């Protein structure tokens, strides 16, 4: 072959290397980044509607991630868990504005509590309508389902996705901690261990909580 033909083959080789890098490294990262941006937009919408929820998602996401790691979830499960943690409350936009703003949880009657509890179902229904997020719908729909009895899917706790079981424990811990402080919350969660909350997730949470507190305090020191 003369040099022109070598040049053709060499340019094909160089193009191939660049293309493989672009399509297997750059594009997946870009797509992932776009997913995260969109999910941030959804969380921002919920936090603007209900300012009492500001910071909740971040804390739930961090704790859920730590619990997931402790339970040795697969990378795909960890990714789904992280996304579901951020999307779990999109259905809150269907909850009346006045129910959450200007009122506290202890003020709610049973009907109002039930209205609020609908948000998991609504979140799941909304995700069902978005093809690229549809696989997260069962996780999100069941993120307040009790561990050992009837759920929104009529499944038993053992049949629920592990990601839902983690979100159930973590999101309720973070929510209750705001209203009744860490000690009473720990007791409430322990009381429901094995009935309302998955026991292995509760144990994992108690294991990761000290380190997450250390991480939180470090972050506070840095931000201060």
């Amino acid at each position, binding site marked *: 072959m003369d040099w022109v033909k070598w040049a053709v083959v060499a340019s094909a080789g160089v193009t*191939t290397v660049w*293309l*493989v890098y672009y399509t297997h490294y750059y*594009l997946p990262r870009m797509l992932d980044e776009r997913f995260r*941006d*969109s999910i941030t*937009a959804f969380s921002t*919408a919920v936090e603007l509607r209900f300012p009492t929820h500001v910071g909740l998602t971040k804390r739930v996401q961090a704790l859920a991630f730590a619990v997931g790691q402790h339970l040795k979830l697969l990378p795909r499960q960890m990714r789904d868990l992280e996304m579901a943690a951020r999307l779990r409350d999109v259905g809150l936009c269907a909850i009346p504005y006045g129910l959450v703003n200007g009122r506290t949880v202890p003020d709610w009657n049973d009907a109002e509590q039930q209205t609020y509890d609908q948000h998991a179902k609504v979140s799941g229904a909304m995700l069902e309508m978005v*093809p690229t997020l549809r696989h997260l719908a069962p996780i999100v729909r069941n993120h307040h389902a009790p561990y050992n009895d009837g759920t929104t899917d009529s499944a038993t706790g053992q049949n629920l996705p592990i990601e839902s079981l983690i979100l159930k424990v973590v999101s309720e811990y973070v929510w209750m901690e705001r209203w009744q402080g860490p000690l009473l919350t720990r007791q409430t969660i322990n009381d429901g261990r094995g009935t309302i909350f998955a026991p292995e997730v509760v144990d994992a949470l108690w294991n990761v909580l000290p380190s997450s507190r250390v991480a939180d305090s470090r972050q506070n020191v840095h931000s201060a």
Partner: protein
Amino acid sequence: MIALIAEFLPVELSRRSVRITFTLPYVAGMAAAVGPLGALLTDASTTLVAGLAYVAMKRQRTIPIWVAANTFVAVIACAFASLVMTGVLRGVSLDGYREPLSALAFLITYGIVNFILVTYLDNLSSGRRFYDNVMHSLRLGVASLALYAIVALAVSVFVEGGMVWMVPLTLVPIWALRTGLAYQAQMYDHYYETITALTLMLQRAHPYTHGHTERVAEFAEEVARRLGLSRRRARLVREAAVLHDIGKIAVDEQILDQPRKLTDQELAHVRRHPVCGAQILAPVKQFHEMVPWIRYHHERPDGTGYPDQLTDVEIPIESKIIAVVDAYDAMTGSGVPGQQRSYRAAMSQEEAVTELRRCAGTQFDARVVAAFAAVVAGSTI
């Protein structure tokens, strides 16, 4: 065989109902190395076999008539490309470069003829405009065609140099291209799904917005085109119009539904929505262009709008378009029962346009009002 493998690695661009396959560089290589008849047989047989296999596998949108049409297109494109290639072969005297040049001539001609025929068929079957197809295909096609050319050249060099065993390696860049197109299709879908998801959130918070945003979006795009904005920008205006009220997620629905004039405090609460909308959309990079349009869609040319009291020249034309169309829809409720604002009766189309004209230059941009009136006059929306 490799052409058949490439045919079985299509990318589905679901929103555009397009399936892209990757046989062309191998058919071009065959044409240069073996001759036009070999290329024609290879192309026709791979298209037919893969098409029938998809029918058997019940892949969506694959029906026998389309398999026949695809095969027919392949044969015609192949025949034209062979004619051009033969002409090039006759005209070129450089020894040793005949095969690569033939492959290139075949590839380019095939690409052009195939594109014209497919676009024509698409226009017949779905009514999609020729211009839109050209724009979509140019964006997708130029990079692909450049890669095809390199691969076709490499295939012809390998075959001519007796290194046929190297040909399968050329599937690597084709596979990478396929992956890249699949990612781009996902990103395209994701963009529209984000808009859908945000719209769903808004509709859950304020069910009356259902229908309103769609009507506003259609009018806004028409007005943008009439004002001479590019197609891309007009499409962005449409998408911004769909999302213009997204900030109302942060507004109390009981205040919005009040059957009376709002108090100052309530008005201040409602007037947060353009800022909240901009805040919600800001994290998404693809929305960056439209964030200011949404933030300023309640600004007025006379400087008394909100949230920033901008003056005429400071307000983007896109915000002015959304402002006019939004106001029109709010005034008319578009004649849809239950869509009228609760605090006043719906106006007729003529009354609403008269009102817009009355406010032109103060509340609304006069040029936009004129364009909008022209759109409404000839509209069936």
